[in-house]
């Protein structure tokens, strides 16, 4: 009886030491999950997820404070990728945060109306608007992520959303109709 207790105690302490050593020796610096989550997000920096950008949202997901279905620009593909990474269930997009856009969009400044106030330049999270005080502002469409954060600050409402239409060089084919047998008319 006594020997049993001693033996078990020894085994437990041995394993405890091994675990303690491993925890120190193989410690992983930083929080790599956040980086992996951030790599899957679309980097629109729009804030529709209620966080200040994609990185804060990634950190919130890693902490468990946010759900994976709060990103409209990422759409279904991002939700599936996040579910895969974090081993959770795929959920549909939370409609509270917005809808998935059918076509990607960029913004365009109406040069007739722009007064050169630089408020939109300050709002753009990726510095995609070129201009200076009292100089013409213009959007570098190649860098615009479609976050639309520049539209509210504009005092003369000269920024418009423009859809980016697919071309023969970047179109995607459609998935064929998967309904195998026509459903009964209800």
């Amino acid at each position, binding site marked *: 009886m006594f020997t049993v207790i001693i033996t078990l105690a020894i085994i437990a302490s041995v394993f405890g030491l091994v675990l303690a050593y491993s925890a120190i020796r193989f410690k992983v610096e930083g929080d790599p999950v956040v980086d992996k989550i951030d790599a899957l997000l679309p980097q629109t920096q729009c804030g529709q997820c209620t966080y200040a950008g994609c990185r804060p949202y990634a950190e919130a997901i890693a902490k468990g404070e946010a759900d994976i279905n709060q990103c409209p620009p990422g759409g279904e593909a991002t939700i599936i990728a996040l579910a895969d990474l974090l081993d959770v269930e795929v959920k549909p997009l939370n409609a509270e945060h917005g809808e998935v856009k059918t076509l990607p969009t960029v913004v365009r400044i109406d040069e007739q109306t722009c007064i050169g106030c630089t408020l939109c330049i300050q709002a753009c999270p990726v510095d995609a608007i070129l201009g200076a005080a009292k100089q013409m502002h213009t959007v570098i469409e190649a860098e615009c992520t479609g976050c639309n954060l520049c539209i509210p600050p504009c005092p003369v409402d000269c920024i418009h959303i423009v859809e980016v239409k697919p071309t023969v060089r970047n179109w995607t084919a459609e998935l*064929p109709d998967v309904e*195998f*047998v*026509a*459903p*009964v008319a*209800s």
Partner: protein
Amino acid sequence: MLFKRTPSPHIKQYITVQDMMFKVLYALIPGALASIYFFGWGVLFNLCIAISVCLLTEVSILKIRQRDAISAIQDGSALITACLLALALPSLAPWWITTIASIFAIAVAKHLYGGLGFNPFNPAMVGYIVVMISFPLEMTLWTAPMGVNDGWPDFSTTFNWVFLGLLPYGESIDSISMATPIDLIKTQLNQLHDITETRNNIKYSALFSTISGTGWQWINILYLAGGIWLVKKGVADWRIPTAFLITLVLISNLFSVIDYSNNSSALFHTFSGGTMLCAFFIATDPVSASTTPRGRWIYGACIGALVYIIRNWGGYPDGIAFAVVLMNIAVPLIDYYTQPKVYGDLDR
């Protein structure tokens, strides 16, 4: 003016799923007729019950799933499941056995997994296994084949027994049923009679000196003929039956050479029981079989080995159903490891 657009290719080889299923039915006919000839009305009743219950179940489930039931029925897959089940079940199985097996096969093994094309297990075999495990006694109720003793009972006796559970006065079920050769060999072997002695107890038909039991021989030969026609028509893949039969023959030969008195010969195994039915109709069910060419060889061979193992050392007389379903479980693994090397893959 906008023209119509359809995806390429714009020409098609018109062989539909319905074509394939009906060809399987045609291939089954010779063997089924032989089965009815040798084992009587019971087989016919099985067929009727199985077909009607299977189709009814499929229509009901499809209606619950809000799919177009009538056109789904037309692809013939439920019909095939019904026929295979009916031909595998014993001829004197009561109506409720056939019914339970059919409902289970269609509702659970096929539609609960998603319907045609989605079931991982062979539906007919799942139905068979359910009744085999739950009602082992009823699953041994084959009649005496035509040409042995008095042959099979007449219409009214069979009808009364199958549908009403009634037997003629003074008869017990044992008097109208008889074990199959495989069953007999197994039970007799357990009582330490050896094979030759047992075989002599099985009456021979004058038409054909049997190696595998009256009736069973012809049935298997006709299934073989139907199966070869099916393979030639391109409906069944040739690799699975070839692998299955070669493996079965080799293994049974090996063991019967080592110890003849306790192991039946290769010919016996090949032409008795449900061997040919399995080889060409059950194992070749495309939905639950392996899909890669190399995988099909492995799949067929393993079924052959498992059938022999279960027949010889397992608890059940005929191991077809269990062997097939066990290999169905292994199919994703087989498929994963037998992908063919793509064009240009240098490791080939």
